[in-house]
């Protein structure tokens, strides 16, 4: 307990709805999506309920308390270092028996605990009828039913939390078969005086037995060889019971207990095969699945463009009018330049970014919540292996379309550091919302949607080539894919809206001010004619190598802050409005410019997260990779188009 504020942690298996539940209590703070491994770090919030403050922590999902993945270790740290006052074990009720295995393991901690049966709506759809009182009796802890997406049951949960914190009842762990219990009791007895007891002696003994060949074991053999020998003997005895390693025997005991509880407390009526199951079969089909995959992405792109481009031209008009009014009023004074910069920054955000950003967020949210990310991983796994990665990286690439920053954070769920680095180096090449805006607003709007679609595929092609290059560099030994495929769900509009809102808030409070400030700054620089100095310095690259107008040099500097800035600045730098752009530059120049801007460097936020997550070396490597790829690819585009 810190400062008297009770600490409550949400623990559960991946994708059971912890973050959704957390958000419905604490307001939207944690990312949610229908993919196991969405939350990779702890999210913490103070909640006021009936005049009391509670500190609630949302944790990454974990399948067991013997963690395998880095984000799962976060859970153990929280349990042992921060000593929560109450554990709220969230369960996907439609996967009750499997989820109870973790519950039984948590009960062994003998911490005050509540079990939440979430996704009751899905359980019902699957034909599972749960007798909650019976579960309560069997587990010896309060059990609450919720449907987190609809906020159903959250009040009851808070009331139960309040009560549990007052009563502070410690549950007892499950009882295993006699032979196993005997060995656990023996290990408890021979635990050395100085052995670090976590939670309680029984839990410590069980984890010591289970810890065969793990870090615990090394610790034990280094500290107390006599104990190690005794422990090994008990392990062998347990192992002999079922002709399997001791950890498997104990895990199997939990497995069977969980099944037993499930059978005693639940009735399963035969579920009807619903339309959604049929759809699921179609999109996972080994042949048709790929067709749908293409269709989904092309359709998504088309829809964003179809919604965005009329909005864009409609929204642009008033800003153009304001701009010309200012020019007429103030001529070319400093004031006029600054005002125009301001108008371009504000207007650019509203007219150019929003029309594409919002539909993109909506469609991404839809795919995420439906559960398509995991399915795409399944379909593309074999393909990814050829590129030296595996299917588990697919969701990160898809997330990258929204923003590269959370995509790089999400690489934490990859088991090997090698895979993490390679994926994180490739993510900055995925056209994020900012770059999609540039591609759609420039290429699709000015050259036509087919050009933009072509550009997208070209972009994927570049990523594939780079992956092959990186595969030579980093020795490839990807472990095979192990990924739970969550059930296909009908996305809740509320949850999608919350995601859009969350991202928009980010954009409005962080990116947009940068856009506006950058735009004003550029006006100021050009008034002082300082931009010419920058342009002159960059001229060998911009004009010499890429064949672009010299005045575009300065836009690249701003593109490092936010990719959209390059786009907005482009008009300002060339001194033309949207409609007249094609009068001052050629098609080739436009393509070269967009290519260079999309690739040339990860934006500031992406670079900082790379640095933070994977270190300076990887960040520098990323810059070098981007810069060289951008130069080579844009130069190639220039070369190829000069042939025609």
């Amino acid at each position, binding site marked *: 307990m810190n400062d008297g504020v009770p600490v409550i942690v949400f623990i559960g298996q991946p994708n059971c709805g912890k973050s959704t539940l957390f958000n419905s209590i604490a307001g939207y703070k944690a990312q949610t999506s229908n993919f196991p491994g969405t939350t990779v770090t702890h999210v913490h919030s103070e909640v006021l309920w009936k005049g009391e403050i509670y500190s609630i922590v949302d944790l990454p999902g974990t*399948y*067991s308390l*013997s963690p*395998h993945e880095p984000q799962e270790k976060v859970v153990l740290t929280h349990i042992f270092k921060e000593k929560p006052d109450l554990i709220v074990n969230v369960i996907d009720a*439609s*996967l009750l*028996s*499997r989820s109870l*295995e973790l519950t039984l393991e948590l009960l062994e901690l003998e911490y005050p605990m509540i079990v939440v049966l979430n996704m009751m709506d899905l359980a019902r759809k*699957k034909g599972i009828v749960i007798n909650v009182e019976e579960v309560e009796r069997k587990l010896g802890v309060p059990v609450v039913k919720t449907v987190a997406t609809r906020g159903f049951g959250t009040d009851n949960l808070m009331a139960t939390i309040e009560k549990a914190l007052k009563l502070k009842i410690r549950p007892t762990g499950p009882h295993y078969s006699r032979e196993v219990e005997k060995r656990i009791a023996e290990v408890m007895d021979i635990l050395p005086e100085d052995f670090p007891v976590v939670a309680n002696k029984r839990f410590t003994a069980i984890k010591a037995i289970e810890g*065969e*060949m793990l870090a615990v074991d090394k610790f034990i053999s280094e500290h107390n060889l006599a104990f190690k020998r005794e422990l090994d003997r008990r392990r062998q005895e347990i192992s002999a019971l079922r002709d*399997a*390693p001791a*950890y*498997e025997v104990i*895990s*199997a005991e939990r*497995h069977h207990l969980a*099944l037993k509880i499930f059978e005693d407390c639940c009735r399963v009526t035969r579920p009807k095969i619903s339309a959604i199951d049929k759809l699921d*079969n*179609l999109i*996972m*089909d*080994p*042949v*048709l*699945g*790929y067709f749908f995959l293409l269709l989904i992405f092309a359709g998504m792109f088309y829809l964003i463009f179809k919604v965005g481009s009329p909005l864009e031209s409609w929204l642009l008009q008033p800003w153009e009018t304001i701009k010309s009014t200012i020019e007429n009023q103030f001529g070319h004074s400093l004031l006029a330049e600054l005002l125009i910069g301001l108008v371009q920054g504000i207007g650019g955000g509203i007219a150019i970014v929003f029309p594409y950003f919002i539909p993109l967020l909506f469609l991404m949210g839809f795919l995420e919540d439906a559960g398509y990310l*995991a399915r795409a*991983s*399944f*379909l593309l*796994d*074999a*393909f990814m292996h*050829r590129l030296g990665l*595996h*299917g588990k990286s697919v969701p990160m690439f898809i997330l990258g379309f929204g923003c590269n920053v959370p995509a790089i954070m999400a690489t934490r769920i990859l088991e090997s550091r090698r895979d993490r680095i390679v994926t994180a180096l490739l993510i900055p090449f995925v056209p994020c919302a900012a770059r999609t805006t540039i591609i759609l607003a420039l290429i699709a709007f000015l050259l036509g949607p087919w050009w933009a679609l072509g550009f997208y595929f070209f972009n994927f092609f570049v990523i594939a080539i780079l992956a092959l290059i990186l595969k030579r560099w980093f020795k490839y030994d990807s*472990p*095979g*894919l*192990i*990924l*739970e*495929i969550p*059930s296909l769900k009908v996305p809740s509009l509320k949850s999608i809206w919350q995601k859009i809102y969350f991202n928009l808030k980010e954009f409005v409070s962080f990116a947009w001010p940068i856009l506006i400030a950058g735009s004003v700054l550029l006006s100021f620089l050009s008034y002082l004619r300082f931009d010419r100095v920058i342009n002159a310095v960059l001229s060998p690259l911009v004009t010499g190598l890429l064949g672009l107008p010299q005045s575009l040099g300065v836009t690249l500097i701003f593109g490092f802050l936010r990719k959209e800035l390059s786009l907005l600045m482009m008009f300002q730098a060339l001194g033309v409005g949207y409609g007249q752009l094609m009068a001052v530059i050629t098609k080739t120049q436009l393509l070269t410019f967009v290519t260079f801007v999309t690739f040339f460097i990860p934006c500031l936020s992406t670079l900082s997260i790379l640095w933070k997550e994977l270190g300076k070396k990887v960040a520098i490597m990323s810059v070098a990779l981007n810069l060289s790829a951008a130069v080579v690819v844009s130069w190639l585009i220039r070369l190829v188009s000069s042939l025609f």
Partner: protein
Amino acid sequence: MFGKKNNNQRIDPVPPGGLCSLTEVPEGEVLKIVEIRGSQGLHRRLLALGFHPGDLVTLENEALMNGPVLVKNLTMGSRVALGRGIAQKIMVEVAAGDE
């Protein structure tokens, strides 16, 4: 759906009492896990995911190009995509008497 095109040797039903890996079985057949081979890390991971010897499983789908297989654990109700190398380490036999 659309006629499963498996390799002809693979489509052979599993011989009664015979042991084979999850990559060598036809889709849709109800099988029982007999043993999980492979490294200890893999073993533990699959146990944590709720795959235990004795569980009934069925192969639902196989991705193209030697891609992963989709395995449904009928006992637990969960579905997991497993890379072929991993599926090879899960040994199964035909579940006797069950539908």
